[in-house]
């Protein structure tokens, strides 16, 4: 349901585009909102609609931290690396997250569950150290808390997929 809405969002943005300058970044944001990343065909669509060459679009995509050319995991972990979080030990926490998920920063794990990213500052400095998992903020973290949050998510997802498998034969 939400997917259809987002799809309409991107297509609507493309359709609505009337040659107004400066719309490239909002179009890319709409594409990423829909697909979770910016696939090649979205670049082609935007290029066709705006007349901006794919190479230039690619240049803009790679310039900004927000844009991804690879699909992201279902849960995107954004560990804050702001000053307050740094002095509160965020660097060690990144190691803990990487260890728990099994990938390095900027990567997605094999089953597409987690993507590990860092972010410059989310402005919740009094809760440092902080991380975002999708839209949810977790503050005053320590290694133990991080592991239990991530394990909890993993458990819930496993239960969901097992539930689905169990439901399938009944179909």
């Amino acid at each position, binding site marked *: 349901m939400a997917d259809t809405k987002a799809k309409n969002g991107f297509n609507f943005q493309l359709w609505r585009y009337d040659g107004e*300058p400066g719309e490239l*970044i909002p179009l890319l944001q709409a594409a990423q909102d829909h697909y979770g990343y910016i696939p090649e065909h979205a670049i082609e669509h935007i290029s066709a609609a705006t007349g901006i060459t794919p190479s230039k679009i690619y240049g*803009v995509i790679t310039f900004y*931290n927000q844009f991804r050319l690879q699909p992201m995991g279902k849960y995107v972990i954004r560990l804050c690396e702001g000053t*307050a979080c*740094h002095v509160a030990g965020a660097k060690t926490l990144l190691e803990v997250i990487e260890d728990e998920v099994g990938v390095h920063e900027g990567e997605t794990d094999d089953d597409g569950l987690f993507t590990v990213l860092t972010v*410059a500052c989310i402005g919740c*400095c*009094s809760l440092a150290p902080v991380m975002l998992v999708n*839209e949810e903020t977790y503050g005053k973290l320590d290694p133990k808390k991080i592991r239990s949050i991530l394990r909890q998510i993993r458990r819930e997802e496993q239960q969901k997929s097992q539930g689905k498998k169990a439901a399938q034969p009944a179909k």
Partner: protein
Amino acid sequence: MYKVKVGMATCGISAGAKTTYEKLNELIGGNGALVELTITGCIGMCYSEPLVEVVDDETGEHVLYGGVDDKGAEQIYKQHLKRGSVVDELVVLKWRDGQKPDGPQSSFLVDQERIVLRNCGVIDPEKIEDYIARGGYEALKKVLSKGDPNWVIDEVKASGLRGRGGAGFPTGLKWSFAAGNQADIKYVVCNADEGDPGAFMDRSVLEGDPHAVLEGMLICAYAIGATHGYIYCRAEYPLAVKRLRKAIQQAKDAGYLGQKIKGSGFSFSIKVKEGAGAFVCGEETALFASIEGERGMPRIRPPFPAEKGLWRKPTNNNNVETYANIPWIINHGAAEYRKFGTEKSPGTKVFALAGKVKRGGLAEVPMGMTIRELVMEIGGGIKKDKEYKGVQMGGPSGGCIPAALIDTPVDFENIPATGAIMGSGGMVVMDEETCMVDVARFFLDFTQKESCGKCTFCRIGTLRMLEILERICNGEGRPEDKDKLASLSEQIKNASLCGLGQTAPNPVLTTLRYFEHEYDAHISEGYCPAKVCPTLVDYVIDAEKCIGCVACAKGCPVECITGEKKQPHVIDQDKCIRCAHCITVCPVDAVMKIAEPKKQKPVAAE
């Protein structure tokens, strides 16, 4: 009747304010006639979020509760709202209408003067009526009825307001430049790309009082003759973007934005542009490029934005806090504004206090207040009463001001004299456990990643500096490294086009200047005095103190701690990743960090 307000800015929500709000909503349920539940922005006391304020309309009494989880919400509902008796154990502040607050945390607020934050934490930011009820849009009406753009510029000039984005350029003067340039279209831009790590003033204003920013932009547009406005907001601030969009729609509906505003000949529209995550876009010419849909790379100045800015048209660009000051100045007059602050830096400044300070949050104080007053009185001193080492101001462009300079007044004259900058207002407090070499490395890592790559010295020079700092932190520093850092710093400052490169070496220069002994300890004595740099610290369990509770072994992420129950445990130094978890869980403080000067100077491998 009671009015109950829940602080729902990003920081409050992160601390759990949503749960608190939902709980209260559920409890109050159908009693809406007796209790009015609303949301509000950031009150500034981030350290005791989630915050709930209960206002008694009849007596004018306010009670602010802190740390309110769902249990606390239930307690407030049962005890205060139903029976009228205050829940003492949760009280942070109490006051009566028009009086100074009293209560356990009142020292956080007594020295503050709220001009920019006048409505933050008071009004519901999603309701234009709340803003109007507090005198909102009166300044715009005053300006329109006077009908003289020059009067506005003169008033802003007379107030002495200086740009709050960091550089402190006189705002009135800037406006007069843009006003003096003729063109078919002019723009007003609001820089809400608050990228400095450790700064969250602008976010709080946008989330807590978005209409104040819109009104400031409207007045600016009227003064310089602009018809179109843009707010360039960080995509990392989704709530701010949402509230801005809502505020713009409400202002349109109420006739404060659009064509022929309030029957005058003045028309103005505002669009929100979301940033896409590039720190350099806080630099105004890069910001314009980004609005235009390009890579956010700075342009050569001159021509200055007042002449050729956004789409090469005359543009005035100010920061969020600057615009939020404007309606107050117009309403109260320049002379009243000058009563706050110093001769050369009038008015107030909002600071985001964070780091190793007891009471982190937002504080708006008159310019010229000393660092000591801010950190020790408003901030309540250092966490766990550790030793104060210094404060970092201005983010990646700023510097570290040491404890010896704690009595420096905070204004546009005295702070730059220390080598730091005022910046946008981030203040990260550091204690004895903060390693200054590590802090310098942290900022260089940031600027190196965020350099747009246009200028060679910024692109490559910062990388070289980072490499040097990394090897120092890893215990591989070389004797010549300090001189190399200093000379690279000068070159990068001189050969970079924009503020990012010109200021990137500041964190290194100030730490070299005030904390040189820490560099020496890393480079030639082989230890990290603050016990931060992992390879220059060892963790050891004191066998006499250890009670063998296995808490450390259980929590160790790499399982490097061994020992039987009720027997002293041992850390395997080869496996240890120095995460310090064992220290945080040990109930008897048996885990020690050891960092001492090594007798033998480490070999500097070339």
